[in-house]
């Protein structure tokens, strides 16, 4: 059994408010796939999500061109969101580490069910923040009290009045 993962709300909030560009490795063209759901949601929240998937390279997903590799993504990336099996995550992490300075990669995020402790340690040693076995859509929704809509336990206890964007 691996150790449970503990991420404070402050840590996750810091990541999600600090990044804008997200390269989504393993993005899918099929709208019923979890990655498509996450991409659409994150776009609505103002993130720029660039899909990466060699099988869909050159195609458009939700208005963005899909690239075959991280290296081909133009401009700065901020965060790499990994929608791949755990045993393939390490390779993506190493690709990201090789590009971290040229593409300003500061965060590695592995999706729900994806975890590679050794790769996470390599990324942390290189100065990156790492989140594993979480979904940024779910965490964003939870931290912004959206998740409560469906009866989910957000774990948030607060008597502060939230500031909301109107319109």
């Amino acid at each position, binding site marked *: 059994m691996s150790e449970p993962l503990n991420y404070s709300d402050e840590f996750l909030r810091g990541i999600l408010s600090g990044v804008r560009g997200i390269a989504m490795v393993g993005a899918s063209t099929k709208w019923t796939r*979890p990655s498509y*759901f996450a991409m659409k949601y994150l776009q609505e929240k103002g993130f720029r999500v660039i899909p990466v998937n060699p099988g869909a390279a050159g195609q458009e997903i939700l208005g963005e061109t899909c690239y075959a590799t991280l290296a081909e993504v133009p401009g700065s990336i901020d965060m790499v969101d990994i929608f791949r099996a755990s045993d393939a995550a390490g390779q993506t992490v190493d690709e990201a580490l090789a590009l971290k300075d040229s593409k300003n990669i500061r965060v590695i995020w592995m999706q729900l069910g994806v975890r590679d402790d050794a790769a996470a340690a390599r990324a942390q040693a290189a100065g990156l923040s790492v989140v594993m076995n979480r979904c940024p859509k779910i965490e964003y929704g939870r931290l912004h009290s959206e998740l409560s809509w469906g*009866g989910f336990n957000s774990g948030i206890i607060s*008597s502060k009045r*939230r500031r909301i964007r109107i319109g």
Partner: protein
Amino acid sequence: MTKDNKERFGFETRMIHAGSQPEPVTGARQTPIFQNTSYVFHDTDHAASLFNLQTFGFIYSRLTNPTVAALEERIANLEGGRGATACASGHAAQILALFPLMDPGDDFIASNRLYGGSITQFGKTFKKFDWRCTFVDVDQAENVRKALTPKTKAIFVESLANPGGVISDLEALSAIAREAGIPLIVDNTMATPYLCPAFEWGADLIVHSTTKFLSGNGTSTGGCVVDSGTFDWAASDKFPSLSAPEPAYHGLRFAESFGDMAYTLHSHAVALRDLGATMAPMNAFQTLLGIETLSLRMERHCANALAVARFLESHDLVEWVSHAGLESSPYHALANKYLPKGAGAVFTFGVKGGYEMGIKVVEACELFSHLANIGDTRSLILHPASTTHRQLSEDQRIAAGAGPDVIRLSIGLETLDDITADLDQALTRAAE
């Protein structure tokens, strides 16, 4: 809440705050009653995202409503679960809990000592869906193992059973469920999350009749299903509603797309959508108010009930008392293990003189209310054989702890001496 993150706040704090942050538009501190059926879309793309479950938000109150959602989150939080689905009654919760698990021809195993209404629902009405229930005496966990078939989809018990002071050995039952690859469903109505943290003992799903101690003062019928978020629905092909493509959502697989949120999302987006047994916002509000004082009420309910049980145990006109808090109870050891804060407030006793005497005692009470409910601030009394358990056969009644001489009490929060005095005068008058 993800299982990896520990609760930061205590139970009492969470029963007041969980699910109820200040309402952001007005700053209203108490949860508003959103007496409202439907929610405006920004545009058609937003509507499409909502209907496709791609974004979080309200569509229509048959599926979700903000006041009901606040209650769901609060109960999910208190139970330590991932999510919850509130609905119209405890019985609706039992249908909802089983709905994603069962197909026609499937079976599930249930305790033969459940609340009488549950035995009727499972044994009679569920037959119409071709859901088959095998009732067993779960005190011998082996009985459950023997009743398993390849089509068994769940084990259903009450942590503390209504009415008889019977306690299920959750740890033993959960081991059998885990081995069989099926969920253990625990009705935690009588114990509440304050007395029994059923997920910590291995339950996978919890159901409640919120009508009882959660709402707490007899105003609102309601139910709730809570998912622990830890059962892997895709580990076998036993649960296709959650693991296989869902035709009504264009072939989406709930377990794959929503991970530990799959069960609760399915309960709203499919089960409530199509079964329609929604909780009303006003009932959710009343239940939220009730839960704010749950721990205080349960402490006093339990203390009063144990004192009344001791009083009756030494009464000349009483044959026996079945309360798991009494040293005389065969469930006393299980009570110490599973319900260390108190063995609940509902129990039974046998009057000398059988059926006739049982009816007379009930009718001679002045302070106790003669009615078919439990978990009220008021003390309640009932003769199950002639009321709640009437639909059962004599054998079923005896197995369920509702024989002819049995009287059920739900002890309220009145002054203890007034409660015992009323029972004393009723017993004495009935014997005259």
